[in-house]
């Protein structure tokens, strides 16, 4: 220890006395030399000879000084500082190279960090809740369905069975969404009410920003009704007014006290307000609700273990509640995140793969540039080595340069990433991720991309030091690198890198191309209905009112006739679901037909205007008439798929179809729900835009009071411009009806159906373009370098009579070879890679020849364009000048 302190002390002293020490060393060596000369003279040499011999004996003075200096310094730190300073100077002296390398690295680091940060913050750690990583949901998946996912909500008895019979859960909470209609005195507003089991807030473990969360005491029968408000509603509707805490609000007709306001990140299923709702067996209210089931796994219980435990219970419960389970099902324990992001996970992974490729391209490019520079610096290295720089010094210095480059890339990459994260938000993907997720620059993600580039830079930055290892100092000093033989191995390395880059970029481009074609097809696809100029709104009725089908009918009859009378309204209808999603699933029977498996169809409850509003095409017979709707007649219009699937070759009109679900539903069952088919319409998408339609029936909405209702209004002007008129008409019929989820159908489609494919497409396109630009740069630098090396050869050829065309061809041939090889490898890679994105393609084969062909053409063109400039420069070679170089 003392020794080390003394050492450092002497080093500090020597630092201060550096000048004196240098002088003393000089003097000491001069003294030594003179003594040597004297001795040589004394032994009989002539003065000149003595001097010469002494010098030769003494050897390389610079090296000696260098070695001696190292003895009185803390070499490591001092050399490092010196190396960094020198490296910085070298980089500043080549601003073009430095800028390009830093920019390339920054692009790679920036995009990788952005995407990996997004994945970290969306998929791995989105929630602010306590132990959220242990929270799981149960999903009942219908194995006969082509779609992934399944039911993850349960009615109260089933919910409680799962909770009470399972052994793997520490605690279970339930959530069910419902309207919370707020009567402010001026009118009724609809809040999205989150009804939660009494233990929900302690389970989530987030403290309220103001006041308190919900406690189990709030659920006691004698407890006063209370609620907790979301930050977003507090900000949007109440201007962050803290004095509303403790006030009483009329929610669903009940005076309810606001006891707490949650912090912004407490989103919990996007509710505006949370209200406690006890779930007890035999409670009819709770039995009607569908509850989301969230459970915290006991510590140390793995998902598989939980799955096995729940599987047994599910098989048992399928016997108890046969209507709720498909014939063949599997039980899946999925993480809470997965229950929210579903398919979006795959999209994110695709993007991550793409960005990984981009990082590889960027790194290869920088490697390439460093190798090119290595060749240019052969002479410098040889000189430095010859005048006494040790191998470790050269390596250290090159490392320092690489490190500076990588750091520059990291800083710029951070800026890119910051901008990238802002840019991501523009893609409106917020509907697919947990609302709690906050995308921030993630340190681990940054370190990963930084690490990759530092390793690349360090590895390839060392190339110039290789020659000193080979001790090949004479060659570069003599020939200045114009011969054909030197640097051959490195040339091959660079070519391989370019081929690799071209291949990667082709993979990226074909991926982006496929997604683009898929997206275009999706947008061009005929949905079967016309979504333009349609205004939609859900109309929740106040609690306790409109409890019969007749009351609902009275409201809608008045409303629809008023709406139709509005100028600018073309058609209007009642509906229960908004396209492209069809309505209620039911088992059906066609009278007089027997079948072994269950027949499933959807049925829509609508008014006569439904068909003209959506502009559905009638194929056979007619659509619902006003009389039939008013009279709640049991007639039905069916879609084409229904006919194909259930009626075969028989004439559809007059067939009688029984909708079993209407008879069995607990809420106001319909007796003898047998409907006569009066017409057939063409298919319209009813399972989302990507899935082909399933059988669907359209029946008068007046036959039951069940289900929430909405309106769709076809307008001749932009739909939202009629919003105030529509609202006025609604309130003219009844002031207590709220309007919610107001939107145009087109906007809804954009946000929910097209946003996800668009997200993947946009990002893939950006990455593919950047990749292509980098590759063009890579090809350019290799070809330009080759031309520079071949200046003499070109000169000779031209002197011997080669024309411009010959020279251009000579250069292009080289580029074509590299690009061609890269394209070949890339095509193989594409075949492998595109299979990964197959599940995100729609209507396009992952080996679509047109797309792959176009991608090849683009890469090849970019490659050739990159060869063009060096080729042109080659033709400008002056044979005389080229030959005179040596």
């Amino acid at each position, binding site marked *: 220890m003392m020794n080390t302190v003394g050492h450092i002390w002497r080093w500090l002293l020597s630092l201060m006395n550096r000048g004196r020490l240098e002088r003393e060393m000089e003097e000491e060596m001069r003294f030594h030399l003179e003594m040597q000369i004297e001795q040589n003279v004394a032994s009989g040499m002539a003065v000149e000879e003595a001097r010469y011999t002494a010098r030769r004996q003494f050897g390389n003075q610079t090296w000696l000084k260098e070695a001696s200096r190292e*003895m009185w310094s803390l070499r490591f730190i001092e050399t490092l500082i010196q190396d960094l300073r020198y490296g910085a100077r070298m980089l500043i002296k080549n601003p073009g190279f430095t800028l390009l390398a830093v920019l390339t690295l920054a692009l790679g680091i920036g995009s990788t960090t952005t995407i990996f940060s997004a994945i970290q913050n969306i998929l791995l750690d989105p929630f602010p809740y306590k132990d959220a990583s242990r929270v799981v949901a149960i999903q009942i998946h219908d194995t006969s369905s082509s779609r992934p996912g399944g039911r993850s909500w349960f009615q109260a008895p089933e919910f409680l069975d799962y909770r009470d019979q399972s052994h793997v859960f520490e605690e279970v909470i339930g959530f069910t969404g419902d309207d919370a209609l707020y009567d402010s005195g001026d009118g009724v507003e609809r809040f999205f009410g989150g009804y939660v089991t009494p233990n929900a807030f302690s389970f989530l473990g987030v403290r309220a920003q103001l006041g308190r969360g919900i406690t189990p005491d709030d659920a006691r029968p004698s407890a006063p009704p209370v609620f907790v408000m979301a930050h977003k509603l507090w900000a949007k509707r109440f201007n962050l007014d803290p004095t509303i805490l403790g006030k009483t609000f009329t929610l669903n007709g009940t005076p309810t006290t606001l006891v707490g306001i949650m912090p912004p990140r407490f989103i919990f299923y996007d509710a505006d307000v949370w209200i406690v709702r006890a779930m007890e067996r035999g409670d009819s209210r709770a039995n009607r609700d569908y509850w989301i089931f969230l459970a915290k796994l006991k510590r140390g219980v793995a998902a598989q273990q939980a799955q096995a435990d729940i599987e047994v219970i599910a098989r048992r419960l399928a016997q108890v509640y046969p209507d709720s389970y498909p014939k063949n099902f599997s039980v899946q324990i999925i993480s809470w995140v997965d229950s929210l992001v579903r398919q979006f996970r795959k999209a994110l992974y695709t993007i991550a793969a793409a960005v990984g490729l981009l990082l590889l391209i960027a790194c290869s490019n920088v490697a390439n540039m460093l190798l090119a520079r290595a060749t240019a610096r052969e002479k410098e290295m040889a000189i430095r080595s010859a005048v006494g720089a040790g191998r470790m010094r050269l390596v250290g210095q090159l490392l320092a340069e690489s490190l500076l480059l990588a750091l520059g890339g990291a800083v710029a990459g951070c800026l890119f990433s910051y901008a990238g994260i802002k840019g991501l938000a523009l893609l409106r993907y917020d509907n697919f991720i947990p609302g709690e997720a906050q995308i921030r620059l993630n340190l681990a993600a940054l370190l990963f991309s930084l690490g990759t580039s530092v390793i690349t830079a360090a590895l390839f930055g060392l190339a110039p030091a290789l020659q000193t290892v080979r001790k090949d100092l004479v060659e570069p000093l003599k020939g200045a690198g114009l011969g054909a033989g030197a640097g051959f191995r490195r040339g091959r390395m660079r070519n391989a890198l370019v081929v690799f880059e071209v291949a990667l970029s082709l993979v990226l481009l074909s991926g982006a191309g496929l997604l683009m074609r898929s997206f275009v097809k999706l947008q061009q696809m005929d949905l079967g209905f016309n979504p333009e100029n349609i205004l939609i709104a859900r109309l929740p009725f106040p609690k306790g009112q409109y409890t019969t089908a007749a009351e609902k009918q009275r409201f809608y009859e008045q409303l629809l006739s008023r709406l139709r009378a509005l100028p600018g309204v073309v058609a209007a209808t009642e509906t229960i679901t908004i396209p492209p999603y069809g309505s209620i699933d039911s088992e059906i029977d066609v009278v007089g037909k027997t079948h072994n498996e269950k027949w499933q169809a959807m049925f829509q409850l609508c008014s006569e205007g439904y068909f003209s509003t959506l502009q559905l095409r009638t194929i056979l017979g007619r659509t619902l008439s006003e009389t039939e709707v008013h009279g709640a007649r049991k007639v039905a219009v069916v879609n084409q798929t229904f006919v194909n699937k259930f009626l075969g070759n028989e004439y559809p009109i007059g067939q009688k179809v029984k909708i079993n679900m209407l008879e069995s539903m607990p809420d106001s069952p319909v007796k003898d729900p047998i409907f006569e088919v009066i017409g057939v319409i063409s298919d319209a998408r009813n399972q989302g835009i990507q899935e082909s339609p399933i059988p669907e029936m359209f029946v008068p909405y007046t036959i039951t009071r069940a289900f929430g209702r909405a309106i769709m209004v076809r307008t001749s002007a932009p739909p939202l411009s009629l919003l105030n008129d529509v609202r006025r008409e609604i309130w003219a019929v009844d002031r207590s009806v709220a309007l919610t989820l107001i939107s145009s159908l087109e906007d809804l489609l954009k946000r929910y159906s097209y946003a996800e494919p668009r997200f993947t497409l946009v990002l893939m396109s950006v990455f593919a373009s950047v990749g292509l630009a980098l590759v063009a740069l890579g090809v350019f630098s290799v070809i330009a370098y080759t031309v520079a090396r071949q200046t003499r050869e070109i000169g000779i050829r031209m002197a011997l009579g080669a024309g411009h065309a010959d020279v251009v061809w000579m250069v292009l041939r080289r580029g074509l070879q590299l690009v061609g090889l890269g394209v070949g490898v890339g095509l193989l890679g594409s075949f492998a890679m595109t299979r990964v994105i197959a599940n995100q393609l729609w209507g396009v084969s992952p080996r679509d020849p047109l797309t792959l062909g176009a991608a090849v053409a683009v890469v090849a063109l970019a490659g050739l364009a990159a060869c063009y400039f060096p080729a042109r420069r080659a033709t400008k070679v002056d044979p005389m000048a080229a030959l005179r170089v040596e």
Partner: protein
Amino acid sequence: MTKVDILQGTLDMLVLKTLSHDPMHGFAIALRIRQLTDEVIQIGEGSLYPALYRMEQKGWIKAEWGVTENNRRAKYYKLTKAGRKQLEGEVASYGRLTDAIAKVLQAA
């Protein structure tokens, strides 16, 4: 690796031993060792001066400017206490090493 270690340690030991009686300058050290070993060991300047600076840095020797018999300014190196201790240690371990090597050679 072993070879280098032995050589380096040996050089230090020889230099320290040479300095154990009187202070000397670099040229004299090299000369003395050459003479004592009948020119078997010739220490090059490239090894000698870095070794001297290293040992000075470690505190085994101390440098002072002095004047030679011919009235020339020269840097004289002197053994310090720590240097003497170091020399003793090296001589002892060198003795053990040569003993050991001799035993092997005799056995063969």
